[in-house]
């Protein structure tokens, strides 16, 4: 839906008469040349102000303890140390809960609630001095029993958030009558974000209560508010700014606040610029990760693989503080249906408080865990009925006219999954390959191959309705160059270039005339987190609104100046037609400036139609859904559990893509990140609650060689039914869940050990050890089949 009115007067436009970098073009990331040249500035690359101090946090060495004494005199006495701060030094409120639940002190007070919790901050002349000094504290603890495991959490029963229930129909009654019943428990591991640029903040003190904080954050406005809270001042005294992050993935939505607040505290207390950049190990020890889950499921089905009722409880280890765990566990429930219609359903969440890092947002925000549970349900039914899991998937897909109501009572009106999956299934030759692979397994004693095709349906919108708003600020300078600012943050996902393309498209100027500027609370206030895949949807629309305001002023000016009807003022590529003549863009702007036309405008957008009643479990929380599917082939070594993901075929729905190159990058990268989550990325705590996988030496994200050798990615042509920005769809999170096909390809390979008669119940992450355990379970079942499989 390009807003380009056909021009009845102008001769037919030449095919190449188009702006460079308009909407729907595969424009290169705005910073690509700077990235490859090493000149893109991240916060640690900024020149350091004179007198800057480096800050290091002193961390708890216990998972749960009372602080008997904290002797910081050796820290203060250490070489290069300028100052040391504890909770007692906080002038405002020592509280940084992003969900306003007041359970997250910035620095520990009388108790510590996880191993790695910050207790004090030391500022020194060098980063090395600060790190060395931080290790000198003498802290006496009185240990308390920590809650680390699910077993302990269930026994302790403390929740960080009231649980949510989604219910439709009478699942108990249906389950009681169902011809087939499957019951089981599924474990799903967490995930470290492993943004390549670690957490960082640089605070520069201003006059009186003012401070500017450069912070690697997805949520500058929240950082601003929490800095103000900690300092005991108002939001207007605090400016937060971020040009780019070296990756975020949700890990800098709320977890970045601690560092921004500590830097600001030190800056205001010392009167010096203060920078905090934790070492990677500290970063991983301090910050929360994707929630790990345990899902108990009870499924009723018929003999044909049709699901009749589902009852699931989704328990999550939320860590020591609430953070975003309520919305995360809610979103897990929202996606525990994936693409499947459950005629009767009862879903509940259990957001447990534990003495571990406070788990947080991570690409998908609980949705992936819910979806993994849905796919286990499918798999169980498939093995119980002796059917290909893909066939069971297709038999349970949501309908378009009926069977289209979700567990939260939203009617799905844009369902395209049946067609999308059919296309992918045909394109990747699923059925024939499956037959071939399974036949080959018969004569391959060690290596077994599997294949799986899984779908994705992901709801787009913040479930917190207020977050679904955005602002933008567009300046046209009097030389015709354009300055663009909006509330969204750039973490690599290509948001900046997409929004610049929107502005270029509106003005019909080449995109390189649109200068992209750093996100700052000084320009656009009250912004939402760049999260929930919403960045381009929200900020693109806000920027478009600002551009349209400016266009309106330019049209009125031109019509009046040249005495033509406003309808005859048309924005052509890099020029404007006014009546019978064409005026270069820059010339028009300069004339408008001389005529004292205001060349700066704000834009605003709020998502229509959405509403949600959490207590009732009813509403329309999602504006629309994004869809996709992946087919993955894997090979498993049944002697060691090692495996390789050999091939992936992906078809993904980006609506009418704003930028097919950027969207393809999100799909490829999201898929691999999802695959990593479900395979080699294992978080491992020891018995005392110490995270032992706190660096890339022990925490293994996918490496280059782990990508599938054959990796086919295509965009599914599907204009968004809703009036999103140029009918595109959000793409940040949904592709992550394409990785679920990898888990199921492994499962399919494992199942071949016992002739595909038993569900392997392969939990995640499917490390070689878990795969080998599943292989051995299959072997045992094959040798001694139970009476009733």
């Amino acid at each position, binding site marked *: 839906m390009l807003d380009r009115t056909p021009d009845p007067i102008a001769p037919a436009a030449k095919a190449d008469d188009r702006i460079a970098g308009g909407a729907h073009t595969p424009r290169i990331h705005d910073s690509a040349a700077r990235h*490859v040249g*090493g000149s893109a500035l991240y916060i640690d690359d900024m020149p350091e102000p004179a007198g800057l101090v480096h800050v290091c946090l002193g961390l708890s060495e216990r998972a749960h303890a009372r602080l008997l004494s904290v002797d910081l005199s050796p820290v203060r006495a250490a070489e290069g140390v300028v100052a040391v701060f504890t909770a007692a030094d906080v002038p405002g409120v020592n509280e940084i809960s992003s969900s306003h639940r007041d359970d997250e002190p910035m620095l520990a007070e009388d108790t510590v609630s996880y191993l790695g919790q910050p207790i004090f901050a030391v500022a020194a002349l060098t980063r090395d001095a600060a790190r060395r000094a931080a290790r000198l504290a003498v802290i006496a603890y009185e240990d308390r029993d920590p809650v680390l495991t699910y077993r302990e959490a269930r026994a302790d029963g403390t929740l960080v958030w009231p649980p949510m229930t989604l219910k439709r129909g009478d699942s108990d009654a249906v389950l009681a009558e169902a011809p087939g019943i499957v019951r089981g428990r599924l474990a799903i591991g967490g995930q470290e974000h492993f943004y390549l*640029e670690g957490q960082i903040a640089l605070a520069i003190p201003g006059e009186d209560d003012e401070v500017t904080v450069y912070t690697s954050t997805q949520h500058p406005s929240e950082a601003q508010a929490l800095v103000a809270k900690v300092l005991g001042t108002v939001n207007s005294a605090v400016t937060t700014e971020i040009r780019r992050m070296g*990756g975020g993935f949700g890990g800098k939505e709320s977890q970045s606040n601690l560092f921004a607040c500590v830097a600001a505290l030190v800056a205001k207390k010392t009167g010096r610029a203060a920078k905090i950049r934790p070492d990677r190990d500290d970063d991983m020890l301090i910050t929360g990760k994707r929630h790990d889950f345990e899902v108990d499921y009870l499924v009723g089905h018929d003999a044909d693989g049709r699901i009749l009722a589902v009852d699931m409880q989704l328990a999550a280890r939320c860590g020591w503080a609430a953070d975003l765990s309520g919305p995360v566990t809610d979103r897990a429930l929202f996606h525990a249906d994936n693409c499947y219609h459950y005629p009767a359903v009862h879903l509940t969440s259990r957001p447990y408080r534990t003495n571990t890092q406070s788990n947080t947002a991570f690409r998908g925000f609980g949705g992936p865990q819910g979806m993994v549970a849905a796919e286990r349900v499918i798999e169980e039914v498939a093995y119980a009925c002796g059917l290909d899991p893909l066939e069971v998937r297709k038999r349970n897909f949501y309908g378009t006219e009926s069977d289209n109501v979700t567990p939260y009572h939203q009617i799905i009106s844009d369902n395209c999954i049946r067609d999308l999956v059919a296309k992918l299934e045909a394109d990747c030759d699923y059925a024939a390959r499956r037959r071939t692979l399974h036949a080959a397994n018969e004569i391959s004693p060690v290596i077994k191959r599997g294949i799986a095709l899984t779908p994705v349906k992901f709801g787009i919108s913040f479930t917190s309705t207020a977050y679904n708003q955005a602002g933008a600020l567009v300046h046209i300078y009097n030389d015709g160059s354009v300055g663009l600012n909006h509330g969204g943050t750039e973490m690599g996902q290509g948001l900046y270039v997409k929004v610049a393309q929107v502005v270029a498209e509106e003005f019909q100027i080449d995109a390189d005339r649109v200068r992209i500027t750093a996100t700052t609370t000084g320009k656009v206030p009250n912004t939402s987190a760049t999260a929930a895949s919403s960045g381009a949807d929200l900020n693109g629309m806000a920027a478009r609104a600002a551009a349209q305001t400016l266009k309106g002023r330019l049209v009125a000016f031109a019509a009046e100046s040249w005495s033509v009807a406003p309808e005859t003022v048309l924005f052509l590529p890099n020029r404007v037609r006014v009546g019978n003549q064409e005026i270069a863009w820059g010339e028009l702007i300069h004339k408008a400036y001389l005529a004292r036309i205001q060349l700066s405008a704000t834009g605003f957008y709020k998502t229509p139609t959405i509403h949600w009643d959490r207590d009732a479990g009813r509403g329309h929380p999602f504006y629309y859904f994004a869809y996709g599917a992946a087919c993955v082939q894997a090979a498993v070594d049944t*002697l*060691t559990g090692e495996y390789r993901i050999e091939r992936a075929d992906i078809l993904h729905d980006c609506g009418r893509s704003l930028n097919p190159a950027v969207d393809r990058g999100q799909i490829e990268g999201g898929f691999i990140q999802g695959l990593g989550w479900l395979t*080699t990325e294992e978080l491992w705590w020891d018995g005392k609650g110490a995270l032992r996988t706190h*660096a890339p030496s022990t925490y293994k994200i996918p*490496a280059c060689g*782990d990508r599938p050798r054959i990796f086919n990615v295509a965009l599914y042509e599907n204009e968004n039914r809703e009036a999103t920005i140029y009918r595109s769809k959000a793409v940040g999170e949904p592709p992550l869940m394409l990785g679920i096909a990898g888990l199921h390809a492994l499962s399919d390979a494992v199942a071949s050990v016992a002739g595909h008669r038993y569900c392997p119940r392969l939990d995640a992450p499917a490390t070689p050890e878990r795969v080998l355990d599943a292989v051995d379970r299959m072997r045992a079942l094959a040798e001694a089949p139970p009476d009733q499989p």
Partner: protein
Amino acid sequence: MRHAIRFLLGHELRTIEACGPTLTVLDWLRGPERLIGTKEGCNEGDCGACTVVLVRPEGEPGAERLRYRTVDACITFVGQLDGCQVLTVEHLRGADGALHPVQRLMVEEHGSQCGFCTPGFVMSLFALTKDSPAATGEAWASASPIDDALAGNLCRCTGYAPIVRAAERALSAPAPDAFDAAHDATLARLLALRDDETIAVSGARGRFFAPATLPALTDLVAEHPGATIVAGATDVALWVTKGLRVLDPVIWLGRVRDLAVITTTPQGLRIGAGVTLAEAGATLAGLHPDLGELFRRHGAAQTRNAGTLGGNIANGSPIGDAAPALIALGATLHLASRAGTRDLPLEDYFIAYGRQDRAADEIVTGVTVPVLAEGARLAVYKISKRFDEDISAVLGAFRLTLEGNTIRQARIAYGGMAGTPKRATHAEAALIGLRLDASAIPVFKAALAQDFTPLSDMRASAAYRLKVAGNLIERLIHEAGPQAPETRLAAVREPAHA
């Protein structure tokens, strides 16, 4: 004695007289030099965001060529730069400011998203093109050169696909660049920096020595019994970056030319302690393909280019990927001190976790690896959570001598199963006289359980380690059979049945 470190930074000569022994190249680049394109991602040599290229003359005297080797700047000490040309991402642009071809291809293929890992990838791609058959005239050593060159660079955004597309294009259309044009001039400048002086510099937190000859090295070690001896520093640097330890003095043996050689002796290949894992691996691959595969997966390109086989053994890692394989082969370790030299079977060097048979004034000078005798069969299996750039959960190495199908001799060593790399003596004994077929499996597994009581840790549980260690005999038996089925997934290859 020379009291300065000399090297080229880009094309400029740097002479550094005051330098602490453990100042990392990364901190130096980002600090005093303000070359901020090189990024810190992990500070432990695992993510590759700090990848830089070190250019050194390699080859026989008089026929040297420049070789471009990636290293992780975060775990390289500034003193180790002596005699080389250091190239960072800032040096790749042409004089006119134009992007280097690998940079341009990365842009065109959308190879960057957040951009933080990108400079490191660019440097690895640059080195890859310099290492290509087109550039060197030698065939690729590996079947998967792109994956191997990039295994030490982590990207969290792209899923690697566009970076690989850029790499494929860079390799398919090789084009000479400014570095090729300057090759002879740079080579001459670097050769002119060579001397036989012992380097001694000092700065904050201590002294750094770099002798050029073996006698100078043994003298220094004798004079400084508390010194930390480093070769590649890929392990020792972490004592500093993570452990915040103060090491004084540091003696770097990277300049000792006598240690950087591989010689053929009647006992086998003698690999000097200064030979990098990259070079050692290339040579050992000629003894047996499993050794080539082992070294292909040993760390990543950056750490193989810096780390040495001698260092890998000397530091006594309980896993130490090379050690179990060399023990199975019957390797001999060579040590030297001012008092003389000493040889011992490699397995005897590892006394217990953290304890090795090396006196304070002794250094490891090399290891001799016997060639595989006629009738002997070698198999080396590395099991890890991730194939590339991961530390083994279990590493099993088997050297069996068969008569017909009957096992006459067995040397079997494992890493990751005990506090040191260790022979499986019960399992070895149990196999003697057995046929190498399924009948040997239960015997082997039962004996192995007597050999090892492994630990559970973040890499694997004790149960998994023991189970897999036992299962490896099944893999070996499958592979020894006349029609060996597919048994391995580690090596990258096109998928069957795709």
